[in-house]
C-alpha cells in the first residue's frame, strides 16, 4: 500500500495518509482532483469497487466531509478517500459515470444533506422523503424535536399525566 501511496503522491496532492487497520486506509484529497484520483485508483490500482459514498457534517468548521470508500479485491484493502467541501455552497462533481450505483448515493446526499452533484441522473427526483420543505434533515442544525413539535400535535380530547404522580394517586388514593 505504501508503494501505491508513493506513486499517487507524485500525481495528486494528498494529505493525511493514515492506516486504521491492516486492511483499511484513509487519505484526504483535494476536491478538484477527486474524479481523476478515483478513475486512477479504479483503472490502475484495481480499486474497482465503490463501497459507499457518505457525508459527515462538521458544522463547527463549516465543512462537509465526503467519504468515498473503495475496495481492492486482489489485495483485500479498503481505501477511504476524504474530501472536504464548503458547507454553504455544497457542491461536488458527480461520479455516476464511474460506478452506476453512485447515482443513488448522490441522490441520497442531495436530499438528506443538500449536497448537489450537477449532472447526476435523477438527482432531484428524491430518495426517501416526500414533500419535504425544511432544511435537509441529516444536517446537524436540523432539530428533530423542534420539527416534530411544529409538525405533529397531540390529538384533542386526550389528557396527559405525569406517570409517577398518576400511579401514586392510583395505587395509594388514601394518601391524597
Amino acid at each position: 500500500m505504501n508503494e501505491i501511496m508513493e506513486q499517487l503522491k507524485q500525481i495528486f496532492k494528498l494529505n493525511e495518509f493514515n492506516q486504521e487497520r491492516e486492511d483499511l486506509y484513509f487519505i484526504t484529497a483535494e476536491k478538484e482532483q477527486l474524479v481523476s484520483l478515483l478513475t486512477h485508483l479504479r483503472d490502475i490500482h484495481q480499486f474497482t469497487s465503490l463501497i459507499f459514498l457518505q457525508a459527515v457534517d462538521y458544522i463547527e468548521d463549516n465543512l462537509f466531509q465526503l467519504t468515498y470508500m473503495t475496495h481492492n479485491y486482489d489485495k483485500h484493502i479498503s481505501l477511504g478517500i476524504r474530501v472536504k467541501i464548503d458547507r454553504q455552497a455544497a457542491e461536488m462533481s458527480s461520479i455516476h459515470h464511474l460506478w452506476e450505483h453512485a447515482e443513488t448515493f448522490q441522490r441520497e446526499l442531495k436530499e438528506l444533506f443538500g449536497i448537489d452533484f450537477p449532472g447526476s441522473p435523477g438527482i432531484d427526483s428524491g430518495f426517501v422523503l416526500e414533500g419535504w420543505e425544511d432544511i435537509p434533515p441529516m444536517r446537524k442544525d436540523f432539530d428533530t424535536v423542534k420539527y416534530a413539535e411544529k409538525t405533529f400535535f397531540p390529538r384533542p380530547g386526550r389528557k396527559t399525566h405525569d406517570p409517577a404522580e398518576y400511579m401514586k394517586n392510583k395505587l395509594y388514593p388514601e394518601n391524597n
Partner: protein
Amino acid sequence: MFEGDRSKFPEIKDGRPVIDLDSQKFIKVWQGPQHPGVTENIALELTVSGDEVVELKTHVGYLHRGFEKLLERRTFIQGFTIVCRICVPEPDTNEYLYAAALEELGNIEIPEKALWLRTLTLEMSRLASFLMWIGGQAGSFGMGTIGQWSVAHRDFILDLFEELSGGRIYHMYIIPGGVRGDIPPGFVSRLKKVLRKIDVLLEDIDKVLFNNILFKKRAVGLGVITKEMIDKFGVTGPAAKAAGYDRDLRKDLPYLIYNKLDFDVITGSDSDAFTRAKVRFAEMHQSVELIRQIIARMPEKGEFHTKLPNVLHWRIKPGETWVQAEASRGEYGYYIVTDGSAYPRRIAVRGPSYSNAISLLQKLAVNTNIADIAGLMVSLHTCPPEIER
C-alpha cells in the same frame, strides 16, 4: 423470450426510454408497497408494454425511521438497541458490526468465548435469513408450500434465539464488549436437533424446487448479471459468487473465528436467478455445517463479556472506522465517525440491497416479463430497510 426485434422499441434517449403514456402503448403498474411479490416496504413503478417491462423505478421511503439520525442523538450504549432493527431477517449482523466498530474505536478486546458465541449467532441468523428467502423465492414462482415449510423451520431457529437472548426477532445479544450471556444448559442438543430437521427440509426442497421444471423454466436465464456489471453496480455476496467471483469476507478478511473454521467459498457460473438460488442453497448447507463445527469446538468455559468503561458516560476519542461482515445477502458494513463526545458524529450503514434493489434491479428488469419481476427481485435478496436507514 420475446419474438422479433425489440431493440428499437421504445426509443432510447439519453439512456432513458421515451415513454408517452398517451400513445396507449404503455401502462404504468405499481407493484408495492403492499404486494406479495415485493420484499417488505418497497414499491416498484413499472411501465409495461403488453406484458413486457420497459422501465422500472424503485421507490423507497415507506419504512423510513431515520435510524442514522436517531443514532446521532443516542449514547453509544443506547444505539445498540436500535441497530438491530435496520434489517429484520438478519439483525445479528448489525449488532455485531456496531459492536465491532465501537470496540475498534474504543480499543476494547473481547474474550475468546464471546468470539465463538458471536460467530454461532451470526451463522444461525444467516440460516434463518436464507430459510425466509427460499420461501420467498419459491413463492414468487408459485410454490407457496415451500414457503410454509421453510418459515416453520425458521421458527425453530427463532425458538433457539428466544432461549439464548429472550428475543425472537431482535436479539440484542451481541453487545459492545462481548455477548449478553452464555448458552443455556441443553441448548447445544436442541440446536443439533433443529439442524437435523433442517437437513431433512433441505433434502425435500432440493427435490421439489431445484428439480422442478416450472422453476427451472422460469429462473434459468432470468436476470443475468454479467461479470462486468459486478463492480460497476457494487454487487456482492451470493449474486457476485453466482457470477464466478470467489469473494467472501469470511475467507478474504476473516473476522471473529472464521479463520479457524473449515469451509470453501461457493461459486457458480451462469449468474442467473437459478444459479443464484443454487449458490444460496449451497450456502445454507454450508451454514449448517459451520454451526456444527462451532458447537463441536467452542470452549465450554470462559468469560463472555469484558468490562466496559461506564457506559452512561462512555466517550470515544475522535476517529473513524469502517467494519464489514459477510451477511446472507452480501457485504454489510458500518462506517462510524466519533468526535470525542458521548454521541457518535455519524453512523452510516451500507447494506448490499442499496445497489441490488435500486440501480441493479432497474437495469435487470428491462425487457423482463412482468410475471417474473417478483422472482427477479427475490433472487437479488433485497431488504429495503437497509436502503432507507
